[in-house]
């Protein structure tokens, strides 16, 4: 189909403009590759990431260091092996709940019932195992499945009936707490077997020093091999990859942190079983989120419901499943919390547990707006919150101060989240 001369001219102009764009893009391509190459100038990467709103876990890691330095300077027992070891067990209960919250936040939803569900799971376990005489293992499984079921019910009302998650889970917050009080009955507190399975969850330590060091070495080696394998596959496929120097650097940092942690833990009682389970959960669910089609569905849904729907994604099913994950993790967290105090009582799952679990996810870097976050933010966030709680308790000051500090940290985290979101929007390229 021939064209008139004017049209050709127009097209040529278009092509020239296109050429200019291409050249500009190439420059950026080079700049991007340079920044991606990393090793040369880490400050550049940080700057680029800051401007494009991809700071990840850098702010919270820095925040944690600051918190630790401050409390250590105020009380020298803060960084003692004993306190740090206790801290590593204390974080597991709220941390497990917070992982579930991360899943829900990734959808851009909220789950206010996690505190009550965790308390209910502890109560269900205690009633079944102590009052009904059921062996601990099936009682534990039933308690966890109860959490899953609750999540499914709440997810159903959100996804199929269309009730906002805030309202459904607010009803859950009240309702499940009521159910817990009801099944606990008149006594109010049920002590669980101090040598039982659930009690062991947080009281068992691998006292052999090889356990902690072995885990640190194994984790580091696995990380390195996975990264190395990734680079080799990417090289073979001819797609850009991280330079080996960056992988070595990352592995080195991970090795230093994990070996230091192992050393500290071995100074006290060794590797806590609870921490091991928590780490396995974190790694496993992180893998699910980032490496499986299911995880990709969650991120897609958190990014744009309409775009997800148009690609044929079953929106209701993903929503319900995510609330099931949240309910399950809440129940597991509740059992760890019950294990810590070897009882289920009327205050189980109460207090500021709910707020801590949500705040931990957000402080750790999971966005409240959906679509951005990692399970590791649960670990980092809960470390910050529990560190503050532990530091304040060590110094013998009121919890009032703890609330104020935690509130301030949460505000900072949300501000960073909002700013990085804005930076990402504003950072249009070309």
């Amino acid at each position, binding site marked *: *189909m*021939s*064209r*008139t001369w004017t*049209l050709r001219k*127009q*097209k040529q*102009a*278009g*092509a020239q*403009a*296109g050429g*200019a*764009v*291409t050249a500009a*893009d*190439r420059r*950026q*391509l080079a*700049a*991007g590759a340079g920044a*991606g190459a990393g090793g040369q100038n880490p400050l550049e990467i940080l700057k680029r990431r800051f401007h*494009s*709103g*991809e700071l990840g876990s850098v702010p919270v890691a820095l925040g944690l260091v600051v918190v630790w330095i401050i409390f250590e300077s105020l009380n020298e027992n803060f960084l003692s092996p004993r306190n740090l070891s206790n801290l590593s067990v204390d974080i597991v209960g709220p941390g497990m709940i917070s992982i579930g919250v991360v899943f829900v936040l990734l959808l851009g939803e909220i789950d206010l019932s996690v505190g009550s569900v965790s308390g209910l799971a502890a109560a269900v376990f205690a009633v079944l195992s102590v009052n009904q005489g059921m062996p601990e293992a099936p009682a534990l499984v039933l308690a966890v499945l109860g959490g899953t079921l609750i999540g499914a019910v709440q997810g159903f009302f959100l996804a199929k009936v269309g009730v906002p998650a805030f309202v459904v889970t607010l009803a859950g917050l009240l309702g499940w707490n009521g159910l817990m009080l009801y099944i606990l009955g008149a006594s109010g507190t049920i002590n669980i077997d101090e040598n039982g399975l659930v009690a062991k969850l947080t009281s068992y330590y691998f006292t052999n020093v090889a356990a902690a060091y072995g885990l640190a070495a194994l984790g580091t080696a696995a990380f390195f091999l996975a990264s190395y394998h*990734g680079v080799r*596959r*990417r090289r073979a*496929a*001819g*797609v850009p990859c991280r330079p080996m120097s960056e992988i070595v650097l990352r592995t080195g940092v991970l090795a230093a942190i994990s070996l230091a942690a192992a050393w500290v833990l071995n100074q006290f009682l060794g590797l806590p079983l609870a921490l091991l389970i928590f780490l396995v959960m974190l790694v496993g669910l992180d893998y699910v989120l980032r*490496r*499986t*089609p299911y995880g*990709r569905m969650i*991120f*897609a849904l*958190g*990014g*744009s419901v*309409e*775009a*997800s729907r*148009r*690609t*044929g*994604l079953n929106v209701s099913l993903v929503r319900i499943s995510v609330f099931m994950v949240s309910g399950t993790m809440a129940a597991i967290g509740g059992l760890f919390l019950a294990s810590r105090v070897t009882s289920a009582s009327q205050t189980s799952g109460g207090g500021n547990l709910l707020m801590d679990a949500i705040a931990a996810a957000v402080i750790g870097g999971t966005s409240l707006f*959906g*679509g*951005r976050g990692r399970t590791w933010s649960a670990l980092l966030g809960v470390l910050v919150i529990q560190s503050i709680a532990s530091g304040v308790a060590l110094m013998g000051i009121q919890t009032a101060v703890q609330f104020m500090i935690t509130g301030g940290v949460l505000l900072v985290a949300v501000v960073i989240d909002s700013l990085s979101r804005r930076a*990402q*929007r504003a*950072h*249009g*390229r*070309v």
Partner: protein
Amino acid sequence: MESGASVRRPPSPPLLALRGVFKRFGAVQALADVELEVRAGQVVALVGDNGAGKSTLIKVIAGVDPADEGAVEWDGRPVQITRPHEAQALGIATVYQDLALCDNLDVVGNLFLGREIHRAGVLDEVEMERLTLDLLDTLAIRMPDVRLPVASLSGGQRQTVAISRSLLGEPRLVLLDEPTAALGIEQTAQVLDLVEQLRERGLGVLLISHNMGDVKAVADWIAVLRLGRNNGFFDVTTTSHEQIISSITGATDNAVTRRASQGWGA
């Protein structure tokens, strides 16, 4: 300038042909007796004033809002398109005006959204990235980094991501709803280049646009809709700007329209 001769006696049947399509929303007759043909390797621009029924027609073809009446022919065979996936199965890809991208996912993630490549239940990121780079390369698209969230891309780049995504399913017809709306000059040029790439690959393209400059730059044919009816089908090379504009605004009637109104009167 109806060049009916070359259209009505084709060497091969058109890729897509609509015959007498009607669509009504309550009291509003959105489409009335609309005819349209798109051939492989042809860019047809669908133009018309606001409310002329352009988007409605796209939705009919995409299976989002099926027609009340009328026949759809695909490769000369009559077909029914009542659901979006039926259109996709035929080889019709649609890029909507809102692009439907997930801002938080990177370019690779968006391209493969809903059709991720996985091995044993694990996403094969390397393979997806390789295919993405290949596809962008064949389309001569420059992307600063395919691992950047699309939120940080420019409007033109987002548009090219959305169009590239539609090509992954190897469609034969691509529907583009206002691909250059709200884009700058350079970004528009990028998108128009991409549209030409599609034609060179032998795909049929149906393009909605308000911008006559864009239309004249890339389209082979211009189909004008006015108040839900055909108001002309023009060869770009032989039609003046004024003719098209007057056809859009209704200053001139067209043979097709006359025929249609006669059909209605009867």
